[in-house]
C-alpha cells in the first residue's frame, strides 16, 4: 500500500524538522506590525478628516504607526511564529486586532475589569492529547496576565480592550470557544456594522489593492444580507471546492470599512455561495447571487493562494 509506504518514509524526514513541529508554538515576541493591510487604506482616508467630523466611535489606530497609502498583502494569520494571537472570553473567541499591535487609547476611560487572562493556551500545546486551556474562559495565546476591559462605545461581545504590561490591545470576535457555529445575525448585531459602515472594498483573496468599492448605502444593504447568512455544514467536498475557488481567483476579501478607522475583513466565494466571517463559514442567502453577483464580474486577481 503506497500510502502506508509514504507514511513510513515521512517518518525518516530530518530530525530537526520533526523536533521543530514538536516544539511548543513559541509565544511571539512583541513587535509592531510592519505590514499594512486593508485597514491602512481606511486610515488614510479617515486621517484626512477631523475627529469631530467623524466620530460616532473613537478612532482606533495602532500606536507608533504612520498611516501609509501603500498596501501590503495580508494573511489570515500574520504572526511570525505561526500562532494566532487570540483569547477566550465569555464562551467566545476573540482574535487580537492587527496581529496584536498596541493601540494608543489613552484618551479612553477604561473602568470595570472584565477579567484577567489567566490560562496559557500555548503552555498546553507542548503536551499531547487535549489542550484543556484552549476551551477555558480567560485563556489566551497572548498577553497572559493582561486585564480585559470593555471598550467604550462597543459591545464587549464584539470588541474588547486588553491592557497588558502598560500597553493596550484590541480583540475582535471571531467565533465560539466550543467551535459551534456563530450565528451571523448575532455577529452583525453585536458589531453594529450596519450603523457604522462607510464602504465595502473588494480585494483579492490574499489582500492588496482594492479592485472595487461599494458605496455606503449599498454597503448597508449588503451587510443586511450577510446577516441573514446561515452557518454552513461544510463537507470535505465543500472544503475542496473552496480551496479550488481560492486557487482559481474566485474568492474575494471584503473589507467592511467602519467609521472608527478599522475594517472587518471577511472572505467571499460568490459562485459557491459561501462567506467566511471570523472563524466560521456561512451559506449566503439565495438572493445574493442575483443582487450582488455582478459586482464580482470582470474583477481579476493576479496573486492567488497556491494549491
Amino acid at each position: 500500500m503506497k500510502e502506508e509506504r509514504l507514511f513510513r518514509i515521512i517518518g525518516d524526514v530530518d530530525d530537526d524538522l520533526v523536533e521543530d513541529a514538536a516544539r511548543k508554538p513559541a509565544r511571539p515576541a512583541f513587535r509592531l506590525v510592519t505590514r499594512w493591510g486593508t485597514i491602512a487604506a481606511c486610515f488614510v482616508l479617515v486621517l484626512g478628516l477631523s475627529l469631530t467630523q467623524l466620530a460616532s466611535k473613537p478612532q482606533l489606530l495602532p500606536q507608533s504607526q504612520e498611516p501609509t497609502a501603500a498596501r501590503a498583502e495580508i494573511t489570515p494569520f500574520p504572526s511570525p511564529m505561526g500562532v494566532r494571537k487570540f483569547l477566550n472570553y465569555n464562551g467566545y473567541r476573540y482574535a487580537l486586532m492587527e496581529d496584536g499591535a498596541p493601540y494608543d487609547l489613552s484618551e479612553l476611560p477604561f473602568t470595570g475589569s472584565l477579567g484577567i487572562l489567566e490560562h496559557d493556551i500555548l503552555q498546553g500545546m507542548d503536551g499531547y492529547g487535549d489542550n484543556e486551556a484552549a476551551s477555558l474562559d480567560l485563556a489566551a495565546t497572548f498577553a497572559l496576565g493582561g486585564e480585559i476591559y470593555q471598550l467604550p462605545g462597543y459591545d464587549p461581545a464584539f470588541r474588547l480592550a486588553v491592557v497588558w504590561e502598560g500597553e493596550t490591545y484590541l480583540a475582535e470576535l471571531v467565533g465560539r470557544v466550543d467551535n459551534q457555529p456563530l450565528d451571523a445575525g448575532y455577529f452583525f448585531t453585536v458589531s453594529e456594522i450596519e450603523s457604522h459602515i462607510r464602504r465595502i472594498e473588494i480585494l483579492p483573496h490574499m489582500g492588496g489593492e482594492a479592485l472595487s468599492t461599494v458605496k455606503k448605502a449599498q454597503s448597508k444593504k449588503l451587510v443586511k444580507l450577510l446577516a441573514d447568512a446561515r452557518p454552513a455544514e461544510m463537507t470535505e467536498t465543500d472544503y475542496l471546492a473552496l480551496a479550488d475557488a481560492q486557487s482559481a481567483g474566485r474568492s474575494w476579501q471584503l473589507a467592511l470599512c467602519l467609521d472608527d478607522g478599522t475594517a472587518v475583513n471577511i472572505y467571499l466565494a460568490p459562485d459557491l455561495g459561501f462567506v467566511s466571517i471570523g472563524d466560521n463559514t456561512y451559506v449566503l442567502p439565495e438572493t445574493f447571487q442575483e443582487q450582488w453577483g455582478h459586482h464580482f464580474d470582470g474583477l481579476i486577481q493576479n496573486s492567488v493562494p497556491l494549491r
Partner: protein
Amino acid sequence: MIIDLYWARSECAIEETSKKYGRYCKTIAHNIISNDEDAQECVNDTYLGAWKAMPPQRPNRLRVFLGRITRNLSLDKLDYKRAKKRGTEFAILLSELGDCLAAPETVESSVEAREIAQAVSSFLRDAKPEARRVFLRRYWYADSITDIARRFGMTDGKVKSLLFRTRGQLRDYLSQEGIAL
C-alpha cells in the same frame, strides 16, 4: 543524560525514558492504532528497541529517535483492514496521503526510501513554517485534525485546507523530482 544511561547499560535508562517520553510515545502510538492496550505495548516495545539500539547508536535527538521507533512499531501492529473498516482517524490520514502520489506514468523512476525522505525534507524546508508544522503534526505525529487546530489556534477547516494545499504541492514536487512510490 538519558543516552548515557543506555550506554552505561543502566536499567534506570528505561525508567527515565518512561518518565520523560512515555506520554509522548503513547500519544503517537494511540494516534496510529487507536487502542490503549496495543498502544501501551508499542511503548514498552519502544523502550526495548531503544535498549537494543543504544549502543551502538547515539542519537542526536532522543525524542525523535524514540518517536520514530514507536511510529514504526505501531504501523507494524496496525490491522489495516480493521482500521479501514472502522473508519479510524488513522485510516483517513492514510487515505489523505494518496493525494501526494503522482500517477505512475508521470514520473521517470523509482528511488530508494531514504532518497525520497530527503526529497520530502527538502520540500518541507522550503515550505512556509506554518504549513510545514501542520503537515508534520498530521503525517509524522499522526495528530487528529482537531488536535492540530487547537494547537495552532485554527479551525478544523483551515487545517484541512492547509493540508490539502501542502499535499498537492508535495505531489507536484515529487513528480518534478522524478520520484515515484
